[in-house]
Each structure stands twice: as structure tokens, then as C-alpha cells.
């Protein structure tokens, strides 16, 4: 009895309130999305909203039960749960078709009679627990690059297995843990480099077909090289505190560009090669500067420049060979390179139309036409945010985003008040996962992220994902509640 009392006081009721609010708003949106005029009850169990109600009730029950589990259990069983999740992932790949059916090209579900679930959901929770346990162990500290290796193994194993199930979206979610690594000591450069790589990739791909002059180089590649040069200049000014070198570099580039332009009047010279030549020349220049002044501050810049050039060279290859055709189309549509209003672009285009038609106040609850006309595909799963945008307009969607923001901020607060490393790491895992899902899902609906089919936490229709998110959150709430236990 005493334990239940303590939970009641120690539980973070604010987070629970956010959770319940988001889940209920999601439920109403699902009702709106699947509503058609011949049916009326939100409790009709043969309809999507009715079955979501059952999922919600069971999710509440699961959450309640998780609060009764001794908080030390999670630490104790973390590796077992991880091992179990990995075995399930492997089993899903090798299981016969009757247990792991091929659903539209991906084999990621396990079906036992009426029970269906996605082991990738469990893998998310299990990886968070395992990472928490590993990083909270007595002799572990994330300081050098070497310390990242074991963490990478924890993440790459489930990612690889989930990609084998052809569920690229679910696999990408594991990248969310990078944010937690950052909090625990990983060098922030990793995040910056990651962002820079995405920028270069987008530029190279986006302008890869646009020639700067016929047969004399492509805009994308040259622009990427220019950006690398600019980074060098900024680095010299802000980190090297050496404006003279920056100016020499700029002037040198301008001279090279001018000479090549003049030569091009008589001979054909590919500007791509000239831009690479500029980068190589700048690197030689930095080496020269380094040796002359006995600096040590430019080695990183040189490595970075060479790495970036190589990356730009492989971007095309990555895009053509590693990505599957449908993924290529999705990215091309996102970058406005391909107008495909009936295929891959259709979803996003219709989703933007639906949201845009909502205006400031929205069309009103159940009055959305775009989502109901089935113009928006999967409007109650991955595209659920459309319904909010169409029926409740700008104020409604902003309200939902604000609620998510408060929720995330609350999670960060909870994370920082933990005394146990295990609890804090797990809290950051949870916050990162929710943030990643939110960013990708809403970004996709708004047309600023490629179409990656992952659900919006608490909103999207479906039991497997709702249960997964609920379990993540309530394990965290249970761990958080235990922070006061020693005082009682």
C-alpha cells in the first residue's frame, strides 16, 4: 500500500496530463479523418475511431501497470530485453510467411492469431534501456571517439535488422539517439557535420542536372565546392582569428575563377575540375600556413575539406545506387526536381492542399472535405496531421505543436532532475525519439521532409505504435517517480 501512495505523490502528473491531452486530440482527429456521413458514433468499434478507443484504453491500462513495476527492474533486465528484441527482429526476418506476412513489400509484423505487433517498436524501447544501462555503468564515460564505438554497435544492430525488413523509416528513428549522445558528452561537431553533410547532399542532388555552361560543369557540384571554401574562410576568421589568411584565400579563389573563365573563351575547361583544383590548392595553402607558423589549428579544416569533396563525389552514387527508386522519387519531389502530382508527389501535394485549405480558423470539426474525399492517402495514420490542419486551421495545428513543445520541454526538465545516470540517459532517449518522430512526420506532411512513413506519437491510428510510445513514456515516469523513493 505504501508504495502506491508514494507513486501517487511522486508521479509527474503534468506529463501525464500532456499525454492524455495528446492522445485524446489524436483520437478526435482519427474520428474526423475517417468520418463519413453515414456513420455517427465515435465508439463504433468497426470503424477506425472505435478501435483506436480500444487501443487507447489498453494503452492507459499498460501505462498504469508499468507504474507498479519496481523501478530497479528496468536496470536489471535491460540487456535481457535488448537481447529478446534482437532475437524477435531476426525471427521476423526468417519466420515463415504465416507468422511474418509480407505486407506491401515489407516483412516487419509478427502475427499470432488476432495479435499483430511490430518488433521494431520493442527494439526502440529495448535499445533505449540497453544504452541507459551501458552508459550508466560504473567505469563508462563518453569522452573520446573510442567511447562511441560500443554505443554505435548497440544502435547499428537493430538498424541493420530493420532495414533487412524493408522498414527504412523505423530504422532511421534510431538516429535520434545521437541527440542523447550529445547530451552525454559526444562532441557537438558530429551534429554539425551531419547537418553539413545533409546540406551538401541536397545541393549536389538538387542542382546536379543544371549545367553552369553546356558541358562545362554542373551548378550543384560547383556550389558545394564554393560552400566548402566559404567554410574555410569563416573558420579562418572566427577560429583561426586570422583575417589576412582568409583574404588571401578569397582573392586566390577569385583569381582562379577569373583565369579559368578567360581560358574558357578559347578552350573547353570543365569548371567542376577547376573548383576541385581550388579546394586542393586551398588545402595545400593551409598546410603551408600550418608548417610556416607552426600552427596546429588547421589540421581539422584540411581533413574536413578533403572529406567534404569526397562526400560530394559519392553523393550522386549514394543517391543512384544505395537509395531505392521510390526513395529517389520522394527526394526529387521534395526538392522540386520532379513534378509528379499523381505519384509520389500526390500525397504531399494533397496534404499541403488539405492543410492550406484550413486557413486560420479551419473548416470546423468533421467539416474537412479534402481528407474525407480520400484525396489524402493514409489520412488516419501517417498523414493524420492533415486533418488537424484542415479542420482546425492554423490555430489548431499551432496549438498541437505548442502542446508537443511543452511536452518535450517537460521531458528535458524531468531528465535533468534525475540523480541516476541510467534514468537521465533513458529520459533523453525518450525525448529524442518523440522529437525525431514529430520532426519527420510533421515535416513530411508540411512538405519539408521526404516521405518517410513513421507515425506521429499519440496521434496516428494504430495500436502497435501507441502502445510503444506509451510504454516508453511510462517507464520514464516510473523511473522519475523513484527519485523520491529514498526519502520516503
Amino acid at each position, binding site marked *: 500500500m505504501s508504495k502506491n501512495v508514494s507513486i501517487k505523490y511522486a508521479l509527474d502528473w503534468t506529463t501525464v496530463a500532456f499525454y492524455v491531452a495528446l492522445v485524446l486530440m489524436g483520437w478526435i482527429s482519427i474520428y474526423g479523418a475517417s468520418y463519413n456521413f*453515414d456513420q455517427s458514433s465515435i465508439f463504433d468499434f468497426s470503424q477506425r475511431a472505435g478501435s483506436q478507443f480500444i487501443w487507447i484504453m489498453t494503452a492507459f491500462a499498460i501505462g498504469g501497470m508499468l507504474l507498479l513495476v519496481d523501478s530497479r527492474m528496468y536496470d536489471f533486465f535491460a540487456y535481457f530485453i535488448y537481447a529478446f528484441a534482437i532475437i524477435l527482429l531476426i525471427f521476423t526476418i526468417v519466420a515463415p510467411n504465416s507468422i511474418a*506476412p509480407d505486407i*506491401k513489400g515489407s516483412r516487419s509484423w509478427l502475427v499470432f492469431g488476432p495479435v499483430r505487433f511490430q518488433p521494431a517498436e520493442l527494439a526502440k524501447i529495448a535499445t533505449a534501456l540497453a544504452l541507459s544501462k551501458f552508459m550508466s555503468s560504473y567505469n563508462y564515460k563518453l569522452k573520446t571517439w573510442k567511447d562511441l564505438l560500443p554505443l554505435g554497435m548497440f544502435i547499428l544492430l537493430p538498424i541493420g535488422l530493420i532495414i533487412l525488413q524493408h522498414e527504412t523509416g523505423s530504422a532511421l528513428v534510431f538516429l535520434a539517439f545521437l541527440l542523447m549522445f550529445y547530451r552525454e558528452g559526444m562532441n557537438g561537431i558530429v551534429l554539425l557535420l551531419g547537418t553539413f553533410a545533409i546540406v551538401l547532399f541536397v545541393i549536389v542532388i538538387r542542382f546536379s542536372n543544371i549545367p553552369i555552361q553546356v558541358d562545362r560543369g554542373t551548378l550543384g557540384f560547383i556550389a558545394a565546392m564554393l560552400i566548402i571554401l566559404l567554410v574555410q574562410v569563416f573558420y579562418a576568421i572566427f577560429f583561426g582569428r586570422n583575417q589576412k589568411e582568409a583574404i588571401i584565400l578569397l582573392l586566390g579563389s577569385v583569381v582562379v575563377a577569373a583565369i579559368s573563365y578567360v581560358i574558357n573563351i578559347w578552350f573547353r575547361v570543365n569548371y567542376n575540375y577547376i573548383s576541385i583544383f581550388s579546394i586542393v590548392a586551398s588545402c595545400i595553402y593551409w598546410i603551408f600556413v600550418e608548417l610556416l607558423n607552426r600552427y596546429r589549428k588547421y589540421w581539422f579544416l584540411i581533413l574536413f575539406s578533403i572529406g567534404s569533396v569526397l562526400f560530394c563525389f559519392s553523393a550522386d552514387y549514394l543517391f543512384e545506387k544505395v537509395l531505392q527508386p521510390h526513395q529517389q522519387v520522394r527526394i526529387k519531389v521534395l526538392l522540386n526536381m520532379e513534378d509528379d502530382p499523381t505519384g509520389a508527389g500526390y500525397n504531399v501535394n494533397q496534404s499541403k492542399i488539405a492543410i*492550406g485549405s484550413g486557413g486560420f480558423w479551419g473548416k470546423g470539426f468533421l467539416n474537412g472535405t*479534402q481528407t474525407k474525399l*480520400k484525396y489524402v492517402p493514409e489520412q488516419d495514420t501517417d498523414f493524420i496531421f492533415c486533418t488537424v490542419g484542415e479542420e482546425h486551421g492554423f490555430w489548431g*495545428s499551432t496549438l498541437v505543436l505548442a502542446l508537443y513543445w511543452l511536452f518535450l520541454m517537460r521531458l528535458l526538465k524531468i531528465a535533468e532532475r534525475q540523480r541516476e545516470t541510467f534514468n537521465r540517459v533513458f529520459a533523453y532517449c525518450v525525448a529524442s525519439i518523440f522529437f525525431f518522430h514529430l520532426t519527420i512526420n510533421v515535416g513530411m506532411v*508540411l512538405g519539408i521532409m521526404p516521405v518517410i512513413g513513421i507515425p506521429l506519437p499519440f496521434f496516428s491510428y494504430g495500436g502497435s505504435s501507441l502502445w510503444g510510445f506509451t510504454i516508453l513514456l511510462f517507464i520514464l515516469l516510473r523511473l522519475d517517480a523513484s527519485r523520491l523513493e529514498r526519502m520516503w
Partner: protein
Amino acid sequence: MINDTLQGRRTVIAIIMSAVIVLYILRLFTIQIIDTRYKEGADSNAFLKKTQFPPRGLIYDRKHTLLVYNKPAYDIALIMREIRGLDTLAFCKALNIDKAEFIQRIEDVKDRRKNPGYSTYTPQLFMSQLSIEDIATIQQSMYKFPGFYIQNRTLREYAYPIGAHVLGSIGEVSQRKIDNDDYYNRGDYAGRDGIEYTYEESLRGEKGVEILLRDAKGRIKGKFENGKKDIAPKAGKNLTLTLDIQLQLLAEELLKGKMGSVVAIEPTTGEILAMVSNPSFNPAILVGRQRSKNYNALLHDPTKPLMNRATQALYPPGSSFKTAEALVCQQMGGINEHTYFQCNGKNSSPIRCTHSHGSPVSLLSAVEESCNPYFWNAFRATIEKDGYGSRNINFRTRYDEWADRMKSFGLGEKFTDSDIYEQSRGYIPTQKYYNKLYRGETGWRAITIRSNAIGQGEVLSTPLQMANLMCAIANEGYYISPHLNRCDSLRKKIHYCKVDKKYFPIVFEAMWRVFDSGTAVASKIPGIDMCGKTGTADNSHGKPHSIFVGFAPRVHPKIAIAVVVENAGFGSMFAAPIFSLLAEQYLTGKIKRPELLERTKNTVTNAYVQER
């Protein structure tokens, strides 16, 4: 607190999160308030994708005679929101359905479990595969029923009312298939059996799409970009079968009034020239709206007309098995062409002889005269050659070898590299089976399994396997799995029998004598040397089945045939004339024995076989 120095990173993370959310709110602001394009889009720029169904591939016979083609058909679709003041009675009358069916169909459309893509704004399939005749009445009065539309489709049409088992049929796709293959939607049709099933993916072609613009009320406003983005449907690939339609027609005719089957194969290629199973039905009755009614009737018919007896029915091969037995026993050294055995006719033990002839018997006459005691002795000599050994090990090893060589003639297993979907395995009993049946490795001996010697007992084969056995003999030691698609790829794999070429001539000679002076002498065709073997398969349910297998001509055989007539009694009476007439038709192109043709056609061995 631990990790204090890193606490500042919480702020960085909070800023990243906040930045993304602010960015998204700004984006929402642009889409929802500043940019007016999307509002216009909502009013006008909504697509309606209309599927354009491709015509299914045509099917030809080996001489390029058209067998299966398409005729136009119609679906009726409805858009729930657009239905206004429907006169249900008039509508039902025009479509020739009753009110209960109408209500049921509307309920099926609305049921999301059956129709997950249901929307009141988009066209939903109401009724499918109506013929021109079905649609004739309603077509003129369609304007009276707003909300209902007619969509074009195609239906199968057959040039000849035959070949139902080979060609197979098309039916509505199952939910399972829809889940597993993105190509299909509810109400689509796909091959369900026969050739239509095997070659579904090449026959079906590729669907096209017509993109129409509609407004928020669902009204169609015309084509999107004047149809520039439409995708034309791609017609299915045509298919040329190995069948010879003249031979097929004759075979169907000859089997009338009888229960049984015929398989004719070109030995050098494995191409099936004719394949008939009777009782049969006109394939046209499984097309269109009549399909489910007729299918149910066929399903519950006690004579099982849906079953392809040629490939699925299992019979003890009887004496036709002795041809393979003679070859394998020679190969395994149990006998040679000079081996003689005693035959005491009806008094022979443990298996009696059903014929009367001189004794001792040679291998040649034993095959020709179908002497049971000879083959029992030959079988026994073969598998007991090394004695029994401890725990019967020598005997069991010999038996395994015997079974393995028998299987190398295509018996006891499905033809896995064939394109025939419906196949039974047949059976050559395994050592394991006998160990289990007779409780242990020492529980059985040659005498226990003596019926294997004469193709009775546990040995089972389909008519297709019997015809293939004849191909293997005609080719003197190899076969190509029987198949129906006339293309090179199926002809490539050669299966070699585990019997040397030198053992075949004596079997040829004996089978030739069957026609020259033996049981089938009455079915001889003047001027053509044919090889055959009569078989009679015991049947515990009634009169034995009449079997005749063989090939022709003796030199460079061009056709191998297996004929099975159920419950007809002795083989040469019913089955041999059918063999003879088919061989004559195929080899000479015409029948010069009209009285034999008439007599065979009009023989009725089973009064229950109905004509459909």
C-alpha cells in the same frame, strides 16, 4: 549531480527542439494564411484516378489457332454521395436482380472490412463482369439512376467449348492476394487455375490510369493536363500453347460418356499435345456473372468435373508399369534378356497369371503377354540379389535403388519444372513407409511388397506420369517435363533415366508385338508401327480401370499417349481404340476408320457423366 559540466547542453537541445517547432509553425503560417494557391487547389485541383484495365493476353494453340480471347464486359460502380431519389425497384428490374441482392451489395460496399477504401465521394464497385446482354436494358435508362456508372472491362471468350482443365479460369481476387500484391484491388480478376493461373503475371498486362479533375463536391471537371499524365494500359502478353486443337477436340469427343482422361505428349520436347479429363464442362460457363452459381454446381457434382483427372487423379498403373519394371530389373542385374521364369497360369503363386501362354516365359513375351508371375520373379530376383543381410540391410539398400531408378522415369514426384499448376505427386513407396507400416526394418520382405512388381498396391501414378513414362521409353532413357507453354525455356532441362540405352530395344520389340499380334491387334493402324501396353488397374470400388499407354511410330516416335477409362474393365477393349484413333489423327492428319471412330465415340461406360 553528475556530469555537471555538460548540463549546458540541455539548453542547446532545447533550442534545437524549439527551432524545429517554430520553423513548422512558420511553415503552417505560409501554407494556411499567406499562400492562397492551396485554397484554390482545394476547390478544384483534386484528382480522380480511374483505372484503365488492360486486355488480357490471348491464348493460341501450337498451330496458332486462336483459343481464348476477350469480349467487352461492364462493371457497375456507384458514388454514394451522388445517388438521388433512386427508384430501387426499377433499378433492380433493369439489372435483373432482386431487392435482397441489391441491399446485400450496398451493404458490402459500405462494409469497411470488405472494402477498406470505402468513401462516399469516390466510385465504388457495385457489380462486376456484366455482359453486353446483361447491360443492354439498363444502358438506355442509366440517366434515371444518378450516382451509378458503367465501367468497361473485358471477359474471357472461348473459340471452342473444350479444354476447361488446361485453360483454367479467371475469378475475383482474394483478400490475401490483394494484401500481398500491390497490383490488385478489390473486385479485380486474376487467373484461379490452369494456364490462366500459372501465367497470370504475363497474361494480365499492366493497368493504366486516367487522371480526371474533380471539385470538392466530387463533380468531374475534365482531364488533368489534357491527359498528358495518363498512363495507357499495357495489354497482356499472348500465349502459345503446345496443344494441338484438332487432337484435343478428337480426344474430348472420344472420351464422351466415359469417365477418364487422355494425355498426349511429343516425346522429344515434352510438349503436351492434348490433355483431356472427363467429366468436363464448357469453360465459358465460368465466365462473368454466372461464374459463382455454375462453380458451386460443379463443386458439388459427385462426378467431380472440376478435378483435372489427367494430372490429379491417381491410379495404380497396372501392367503399363511392367515396361519400366523390365528396364529397371535389367539395369539392376536381376534379369537379362535371356532370363526365363516358370508360369503356371491361374495356379501361379503368390501372384496368379491372368493370361494363358506357354511356360517358361521369356522377358520379351512376359512384357507382351503381361505375365504377372514373371514380373514377380524378376522383381524378387532384383531386390533379393544380395540376400537380406543383417537387419535386412542388403535387401533394403536394393529396394531403395529400385525405387530411385523407378522415380527417374518421372514417377512418384511432381514435375517441378513444369507449368502445370494442378498436379498430384503419385507414389513410389519409400523404405521409410514400409518400415513404419510393417513395424521395423525387418518386418517386410520381397514377398510382402510383391504387388510393386506389377504396378498394383501402393504404387500410384497420374495419367500425366504414365504418358511421360512412355516419352522416357520412346526417347530411350530421358524425358523433358511435360508442359503447356510453347517456349524454349521449358524445353531446356533434360531428365535422364537411370537405365542404360542398351536395355530399351527389347521393350520396344515387346510393345510393338502388342499391336502386331498381342492384345491390341484390333487397334492396329495399317502402315504405322506402333508400340503399346495394355493395363488394367484393380479398383476396390468397382470394375477395374482400363488403361492403355504407348507411343508411335516405333522409329523416331512423334507422340506418346496415356489413356485411362475408369471402371471400363479390360484395357484393350476401351482404351486401346482411343489410343489408336488419336495416333492416327496426329500422325496422318485424318481418320480413315470412320466405323471405329463412331463406335468408340458412342460407347458409354458411365451413364452418370453429364454433358455440360
